[in-house]
């Protein structure tokens, strides 16, 4: 059976159809999950896609936590279910505390919409399992608040736990330790600023995101 992957939609989310399309082309059965629902359908994995949840008012991701769907999303994550937050989804995951640290304004106070190179620096996550360390991927970024920050002990814990899964090669936004993506302790919750779904076909300019999405499909199939 095709892995069932839920894609959460808030008012202001704008990457949900790109994610559903990319996952479906890889053989998943992806469905949209509205933020106002207080339960999830039976799922093997979840994606919180990019956009501007609730308009990004106050801080990106800050208001998403009050959406009814976040309660079952949090339970799903804490039970070990694979959850990936892309861009605004990464911001949402830090705001609800499923991932440590925070994402603040880019170092040079510019919105960045560009291709970037990231290196896989840990295979210990649902998004990077099976991908050799050091693999470089060409992926687009598209954000104003992608500058990852955390305190010293948190950074030490991320390093010690092998939880920094993607690093920029040439830091575009000032993120501490070149961090482009991190995982929780269990490796089942991952947040990243680059958009793998926008690099899921050579027609889009790059298919480098496919290995990441395939890893997620693998984790979903095993869930």
């Amino acid at each position: 059976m095709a892995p069932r992957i839920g894609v959460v939609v808030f008012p202001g989310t704008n990457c949900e159809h790109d994610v559903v399309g990319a996952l479906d082309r890889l053989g998943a059965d992806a469905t949209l999950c509205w933020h106002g629902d207080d339960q999830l359908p039976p799922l093997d994995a979840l994606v919180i896609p990019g956009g501007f949840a609730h308009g990004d008012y106050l801080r990106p991701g800050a208001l998403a936590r009050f959406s009814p769907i976040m309660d079952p999303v949090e339970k799903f994550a804490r039970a070990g279910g694979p959850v990936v937050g892309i861009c605004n989804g990464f911001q949402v995951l830090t705001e609800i505390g499923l991932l440590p640290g925070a994402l603040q304004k880019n170092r040079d106070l510019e919105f960045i919409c560009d291709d970037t190179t990231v290196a896989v620096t840990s295979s210990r996550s649902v998004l990077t399992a099976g991908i050799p360390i050091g693999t470089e991927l060409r992926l687009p970024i598209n954000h104003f608040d992608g500058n990852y920050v955390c305190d010293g002990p948190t950074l030490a814990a991320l390093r010690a736990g092998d939880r920094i899964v993607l690093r920029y090669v040439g830091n575009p936004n000032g993120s501490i330790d070149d961090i482009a993506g991190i995982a929780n302790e269990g490796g089942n919750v991952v947040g990243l600023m680059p958009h793998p779904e926008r690099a899921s076909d050579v027609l889009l300019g790059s298919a480098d995101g496919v290995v990441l999405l395939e890893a997620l499909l693998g984790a979903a199939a095993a869930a």
Partner: protein
Amino acid sequence: MRWEARVEVRRRSGISDPEAATIERSLPALGYGDVHELTSGRWFRFEVEAEDEASARQRVAGLADRLLANPVIEETALDVSPAGGG
């Protein structure tokens, strides 16, 4: 009764402040090269209903930490006083 709350949200020390850094970099060109140690933040004002000042303060502190600030990178300063104009 109603209480007026003012909440200042500022970055924790040690957390980089790209907005302040950009403003400070531009100051010499405007003739303000004598300005240093600039920080930026956000400020909120609202009214809250509560029996007394202590419980109003507790409500405001809870709201500040849960929503107005991200405690991971920000800290808050609160001011609560009786709301004027009834």
